[in-house]
């Protein structure tokens, strides 16, 4: 699959500060790529460089084969962008806004169909200043699609929205993927990235600290899965002795590390054979959220230690 976005050695400096410090990644065409990171990590700077809104200091960037800074005009005809906290002319309705963009881009998109797509058709004739936060973001999304873009850049599109509005935006993102468009999604919500993204990159202090599919990142950086058994504490010793499993008692429950999904069957069989009392069990595995918090935390601790070293 050809790459829609290719980034090599990208650096952006503001004076002595490197907001983006030599990052590499690529986004396959048709994929949903999620770019994660805490505030100030370099997400928005990177995104704006890809959109052609900001000039890079060093490195090579290609979006749909074009240099975003020097070939911004042709690039902007092929991409759609919805910024954080989308704002528009206050007295203009969503229908008029789409007609405006349609005239500027010279496309023949049907405003009603586009508003249906983002679930905003019922507000087609309401003025922008009367729309809720979620409805404004939906209009931003609709406008970013007016030029039938190959790549959609969505910068924190669901920040501050209620759960229902977030799910509506997620559905639109899924439909964009079904239509074969590439989606570049920056978000604070790890759950959102895990649900929607084919590939994820986590950026922190201007560097990419993890990249891959959500599953790959969890496997590479997360703790192994665990089974937690509500029952006699003696089960821990029994499982260690009979299965050689790493079993400990935590919060009154027996916790056993699962190295393989078949381990669960072996452990349950051993528990049953032990004759010791037990009532229920659950399995737990790390989410992208757990991995993110751990990776960012580890890096900050490392940075603090380094800073604290004389």
């Amino acid at each position, binding site marked *: 699959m050809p790459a829609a976005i290719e980034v090599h050695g990208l650096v952006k400096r503001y004076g002595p500060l490197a907001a983006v410090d030599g990052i590499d990644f690529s986004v396959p065409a048709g994929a949903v790529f999620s770019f994660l990171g805490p505030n100030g990590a370099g997400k928005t700077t990177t995104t704006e460089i890809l*959109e052609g*809104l*900001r*000039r890079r200091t060093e490195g090579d960037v290609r979006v749909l084969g074009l240099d975003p800074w020097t070939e911004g*005009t042709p690039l*902007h*005809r092929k*991409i759609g*962008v919805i*910024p954080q*906290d*989308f*704002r*528009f*002319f*206050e*007295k*203009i309705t969503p229908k*008029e806004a789409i*007609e*405006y*963009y349609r*005239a*500027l*881009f*010279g496309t023949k998109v049907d405003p009603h169909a586009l508003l249906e797509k983002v679930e905003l058709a019922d507000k087609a004739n309401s*003025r922008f200043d009367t729309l809720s936060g979620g409805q404004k973001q939906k209009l931003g999304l609709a*406008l970013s699609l007016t030029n039938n873009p190959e790549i959609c850049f969505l910068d924190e599109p669901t920040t501050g929205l209620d759960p229902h509005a977030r799910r509506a935006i997620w559905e639109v993102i899924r439909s964009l993927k079904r239509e074969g468009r590439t989606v570049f999604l920056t978000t604070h919500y790890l759950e959102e990235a895990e649900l929607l993204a084919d590939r994820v990159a986590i950026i922190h202090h201007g560097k990419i600290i993890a990249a891959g599919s959500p599953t790959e990142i969890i496997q590479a950086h997360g703790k192994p899965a665990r089974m937690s058994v509500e029952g006699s504490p003696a089960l821990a010793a029994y499982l260690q002795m009979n299965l050689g499993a790493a079993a400990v008692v935590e919060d009154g429950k027996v916790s056993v590390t699962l190295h393989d999904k078949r381990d669960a069957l072996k452990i349950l069989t051993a528990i049953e054979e032990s004759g010791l009392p037990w009532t229920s069990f659950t399995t737990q595995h790390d989410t992208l959220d757990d991995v993110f918090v751990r990776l960012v935390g580890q890096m900050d601790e490392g940075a603090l230690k380094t800073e604290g070293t004389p």
Partner: protein
Amino acid sequence: MKLGHIAADFRIVSRTYFRNPVALFFSLIFPIILIALFGLIFSAAGSSTVTLVVVNEDHNPGGVGYTPTSVAFLSALNNTSVVSVQVVSVSAQNFSNYLGQNGDSTGLVIPAGFQADYRSDRPVNLTVYTDPQDAAAGGTVLGAVQGVSAAFNLHAVCGTGSCAPVIGFTNANVGSQVYKYIDYLIPGLIGFSILTSPMFSMVDIASSYRKDGIFRQLSLTPITRGEWLTSRVLWYVALTFVTASIMIGAGIFLFGAHVTLTLGVIPYLVVGPFFFVSLGMLAGSVAKTPESAALIGNIITFPMMFLSGTFFQVSSMPPGLQEFARILPLYYVIDGMNQVMLFQNAPRALLDLLVVLIGSVVVFLLAIRLFKWRDE
């Protein structure tokens, strides 16, 4: 430049405007209020006569009625038509206080023995009261009293025989026609509207659209800065045509203004907004924040608002201010309209137009160059 882009943006700006009650008020209602307000204030001041309160102490012998000479003197004052005599029965000693308490700014005392002294060629003194705060009324009354006194003196010197004045005069007006204040007010207030409406609006738009990210959003579309600014210029040209029509209509029908309605005024209604939309955009673009943009806008706008011939003729200002007015772009817009609508002075009108046109092109190009869709 693509006309389709300009037309699309023109639709957006016109809808935005028509849905904004404040903007509509300032475009359509405010001009009528302005012209009515200034028209009423100054047309009243121009046409009224000054009331002259008089104490006549020159009674007939026996105290019945006033002497014929004093009555003839007051009658002559009334006939000047610049003062209206109102005789009151107050003692001369209390007259000054009386005037102050009644809010009268001018007064005259004819002393007892006025007729007797006049007929005997003995000097006799009239006392004229004036209020320094109303210098215009004071000047009018002093002039009228001096004029009538001179005629009576002449008559006294000549005796009872005929004594026609040697030097006379005829009153004529500057220019070929009589101009009233309201006639000057119409081009002045059209100029005021050409200045304020785009300046205040564009300065605000330039900074607030940048702050709200709307310019950033537009930078990702094919519309260019030139197309965007052109649509704004066209909108304000259209708005100026409406406002100017309202002002001319109100001036003619409410105050009987005499202005020449000619197509020659149209170029000013085009280049004026062209200049000030561009200048507003330029001021808003160089400012870093909406607050500093408003400040820069006010610094540029306020001197022009009062010193370019909007409410007062530039020729009535002190010489230093007149020189200053000539560096203000609005002066040339208003002067040009005066030349076209009042004086029919085509060469000077063309020169004014040329000055504004060259200025407009320069400011428009500068605005496009300095106004950025986004900061980098």
